[in-house]
């Protein structure tokens, strides 16, 4: 064979794998660049979350004049899929495939569904609002279209996040998991902040055409980011996904998972703590404006200080947990910071000290960061190797459901208490304060549930 031919053949053979979407082999060391790339799926998830909770919430009510109750129902539709995260994780654990992939097919399908939901969403919203020629169209078209769009985004979002976190757990050695959890949370926050700013700037002078451009652009960005994120991450392992392997039912698998290592108690603590840290989410800004008389720009910096507290919490927790501190101890520290945080927020009103309010919000953000980081790291550490998807699915199901329900309940409780106490004078304050008091109670309950998890660990550490 002459040298040129051999060179061409060799080049051709090495060219092939470069363009294939799977990793060559499972390497023990995960380089940081690869982790960063994997965490891009969190940016797309954060973008979809901002779109649902922030941007569309406002656009539908203010610019499109859709009734607020209908908006609330539509925006809560993605929550329907949150409990199914455990099932999605289980299905990806036990996926049977000749190609030897367990995570990539699910992430790809989730991405496709999220893309589809975002692609039809702007038209559905405009039809729902009766823009253009849609005024004479039957009402069900807008309702069904918008419902379908939100359901698809929700299904895609929950699938991508569950399976993405499971893939990250598969790839990372246990001692690197705290760093990965920190990275995932920071990227989620970055995705949320950047897309909130970008959406706000692009939609500042609103036209229906702009809404279509912005939402469909976010659909394309989702597709691009997720494909970049999962490219060449999962190694093929056909032995693990062979068809002759026994296939446990979800019930069996869940049964063995929930029996192991106090799983139910951990999920309860997670649910209580998450509910406590998310109930005030939509109430902090109106509290600042209505009760403390802060300006709009001042209340917006509140959201920033909440995010800043979270960032500090994530980076601190990553550093400390990498040194082998018990993640549940970290989570209980977070709860410990949350209680005075909420107390400061309540006290700020009678003392007329907005600075106290800002400090409280910072503490809540910091405590919430430690708590989220600790519980997710514990979930990754303790996940049985053959049930990684199920464990992270259960974590995500509890976390997302608790956060969503608490956020909705927070608004309802404020309205009910304010209505009962009368809107004048202390009535409005009472409405907000009752939510914050409930949050403190939930935090204490979470701490109580977590206690045995801590003491048990301390005891085993002493024995060893």
């Amino acid at each position, binding site marked *: 064979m002459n040298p040129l031919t051999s060179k061409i053949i060799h080049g051709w053979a090495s060219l092939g794998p470069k363009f294939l979407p799977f990793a060559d082999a499972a390497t023990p060391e995960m380089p940081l660049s690869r982790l960063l790339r994997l965490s891009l799926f969190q940016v797309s998830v954060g973008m979809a979350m901002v779109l649902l909770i922030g941007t569309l919430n406002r656009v539908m009510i203010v610019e499109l004049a859709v009734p607020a109750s209908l908006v609330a129902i539509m925006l809560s539709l993605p929550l329907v899929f949150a409990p199914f995260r455990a099932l999605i994780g289980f299905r990806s654990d036990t996926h049977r495939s000749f190609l030897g992939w367990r995570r990539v097919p699910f992430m790809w399908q989730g991405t496709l569904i999220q893309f*589809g939901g975002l692609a039809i969403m702007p038209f559905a919203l405009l039809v729902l609002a009766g823009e253009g020629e849609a005024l004479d169209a039957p009402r069900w078209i807008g309702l069904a279209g918008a419902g379908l769009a939100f359901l698809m985004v929700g299904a895609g979002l929950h699938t991508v996040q569950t399976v993405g976190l499971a893939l990250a757990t598969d790839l990372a050695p246990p001692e690197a998991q705290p760093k990965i959890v920190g990275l995932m949370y920071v990227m989620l926050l970055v995705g949320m902040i950047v897309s909130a700013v970008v959406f706000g700037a692009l939609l500042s002078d609103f036209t229906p055409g702009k809404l279509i451009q912005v939402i469909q652009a976010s659909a394309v960005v989702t597709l691009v980011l997720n494909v970049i994120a999962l490219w060449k991450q999962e190694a093929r392992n056909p032995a693990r996904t062979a068809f002759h392997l026994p296939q446990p039912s979800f019930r069996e698998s869940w049964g063995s998972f929930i029996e192991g290592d106090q799983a139910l108690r951990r999920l309860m603590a997670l649910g209580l703590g998450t509910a406590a840290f998310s109930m005030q989410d939509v109430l902090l800004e109106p509290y600042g404006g209505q009760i403390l008389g802060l300006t709009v720009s001042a209340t917006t910096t509140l959201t920033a200080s909440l995010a800043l507290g979270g960032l500090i919490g994530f980076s601190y927790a990553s550093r400390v947990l990498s040194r082998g501190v018990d993640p549940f101890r970290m989570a209980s520290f977070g709860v410990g910071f949350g209680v005075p945080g909420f107390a400061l927020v309540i006290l700020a009103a009678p003392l007329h000290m907005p600075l106290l309010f800002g400090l409280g919000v910072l503490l809540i953000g910091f405590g919430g960061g430690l708590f989220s980081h600790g519980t997710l790291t514990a979930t990754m550490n303790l996940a049985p190797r053959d049930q990684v998807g199920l464990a992270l699915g259960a974590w995500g199901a509890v976390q997302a459901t608790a956060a969503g329900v608490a956020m909705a309940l927070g608004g309802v409780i404020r309205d009910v208490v304010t209505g009962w106490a009368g809107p004048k004078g202390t009535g409005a304050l009472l409405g907000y304060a009752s939510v914050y008091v409930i949050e403190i109670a939930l935090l204490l309950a979470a701490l109580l549930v977590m206690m045995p998890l801590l003491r048990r660990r301390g005891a085993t550490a002493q024995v060893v």
Partner: protein
Amino acid sequence: MSENSKVWPTGLTVGEAEELHRYLISGTRTFGFIAACAHFLAYTLTPWLK
């Protein structure tokens, strides 16, 4: 041709090739469904050729 033999020109086995084909088909169906929904809603909003 046995189940595990690699097939020219892709180097995949028959099972792998069929699985890849299934993803292709399901992806095409999903995209088709999304496109149909988007066209229907867009037509409701601004009918063309009318």
